[in-house]
């Protein structure tokens, strides 16, 4: 009887050990394989971690894309297997107004609400609302920053003068010319990649990166005092708060004399 119990316990331990070993290997692989922070997702994609839980890897968005922009990750692409992505230097997103790729998504990994706006009492598509990434200019390799006249990215931008605008600067080298410099405004940039596709340099000097990779975050303790909407965040605040303790009631000078016996 005791032998039977021993056998049972050992067998169970063996099974659990096999399951745990397999599970750990599997988990290690999946955890590494799903981490591809530089992947550009389709329009309307939720935040990368939500996207990775929801995407069922069916490829319906890929099939819906009329420009073959979207690709379903194959083994060897070094992207999370079976998930959709795009490479703007090869094929950028042409920002279709009817957004064919988002509605077919069966799981909601692509969020229709994020690319529609209310107009009257119905919601209409607005592709300019999508935020797939943001274009970043490499100012050392952009020939416009050298002083050569080039506005390829600016002309390619579907949100011309909003997402990319040209800034005028004096060319100090020649002393008599102007430089027209492309500058990206992340408030408008959708990450479509038409600029990266159009860039004339050998390796694009303007590149789309996922927004959470490229953009910083100020933190809520900075308030734009010159902006009414931002200043309103201070409403209801109790002003500057000072912590009062028995020690802080005394003047700092008094601490100099502390512990000294003058007698």
């Amino acid at each position, binding site marked *: 009887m005791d032998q039977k119990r021993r056998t049972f316990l050992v067998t169970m331990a063996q099974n659990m050990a096999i399951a745990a070993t397999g599970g750990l290997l599997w988990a290690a692989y*999946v955890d590494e394989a799903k981490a591809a922070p530089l992947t550009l997702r389709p329009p309307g994609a939720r935040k990368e971690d939500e996207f990775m*839980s929801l995407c*069922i*890897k069916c490829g319906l968005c*890929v099939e819906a894309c009329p420009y073959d922009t979207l690709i379903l990750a*194959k083994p060897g692409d070094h992207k999370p297997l079976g998930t959709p992505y795009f490479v703007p230097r090869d094929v950028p997103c042409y920002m279709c107004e009817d957004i064919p790729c988002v509605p077919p998504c069966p799981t909601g990994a692509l969020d229709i609400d994020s690319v529609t706006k209310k107009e009257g009492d119905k919601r209409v598509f607005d592709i300019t609302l999508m935020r797939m990434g943001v274009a970043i200019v490499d100012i050392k390799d952009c020939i416009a920053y050298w002083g050569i006249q080039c506005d390829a990215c600016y002309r390619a931008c579907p949100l011309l003068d909003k997402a990319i605008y040209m800034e005028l600067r004096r060319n100090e080298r020649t002393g008599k010319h102007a430089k027209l410099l492309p500058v990206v405004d992340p408030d408008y940039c959708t990450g479509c990649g038409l600029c990266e596709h159009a860039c004339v340099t050998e390796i694009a000097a303007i590149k789309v990166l996922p927004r959470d990779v490229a953009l910083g975050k100020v933190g809520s303790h900075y308030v734009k005092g010159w902006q009414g909407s931002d200043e309103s965040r201070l409403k209801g605040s109790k002003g500057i708060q000072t912590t009062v303790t028995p020690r802080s009631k005394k003047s700092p000078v008094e601490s100099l004399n502390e512990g000294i016996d003058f007698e």
Partner: protein
Amino acid sequence: MNRIWKKYRFLILRRISQIAILVLYIGGNYWGWKILQGNLSSSSLFGKVPLADPYAVLQIFSTGAIVAADAIIGAVIVTLFYALIGGRAFCSYVCPVNMVTDLANYLRRKWKLDKIEKKWWASRNIRYWVMGLSFILSFLLGTAAFELVSPISITHRGIIFGMGFGWAAILAIFLFDLFILKNGWCGHVCPLGGFYSLVGRYNLFRVRHNQPNCTLCMKCKEVCPEKEVLYMIGKKSQIVDMGECTLCGRCVEVCDDDALHFSIRDFVKKGE
């Protein structure tokens, strides 16, 4: 010719079904056919009816994500189909990996590998452990864990959307089944097969054994990819009631004695 049809009729039908489904999906991607679009994880039938792999949807549920209605409706439709009618027929009539493992199994029989090879023993319940693990890992890692490694999806997606290095997964399964474990992938490891075994446990269509006709030649057990389901052969007239039966019909067609045929489940227990 007639004999070939009689001996291979279900095999031929299954190959037609598997290839036709693949062709429809390929047409959906490359030529814009609106019959079946997407892939086996989730698709759209005639551009209207959503279909979804219920096992994949359950994994997404385990991650804690809120799945949109289309995928849920699709998963319910597929589950109902297999629970009521299909049983585990997904494995033998739809899944593209079946063609790979069937080939391995065929070569095994042809080259008589079972007689020479070192025998490994592995439980056929591994698939249920893998299935349980996949839910735990999906929960812990926040992504559908089996879907990121599934050779079924890799193969299927590979055929429809481009293979990449996906052939390596197919080769691995082929070698595993051919030289390491008989019916290794489909019959032991694959959690999707395990899932459909559970879903299709009580479906309508079943293989039935007619014991008085049986001459105990055991041809059925030799071809069966899940031979544990044929435990009643030569012993008792009854339906093959285990969920692991893929309804592939190989046993029916190899039987020379008319002791096996497709039938419908008994709904009322007959008195002995």
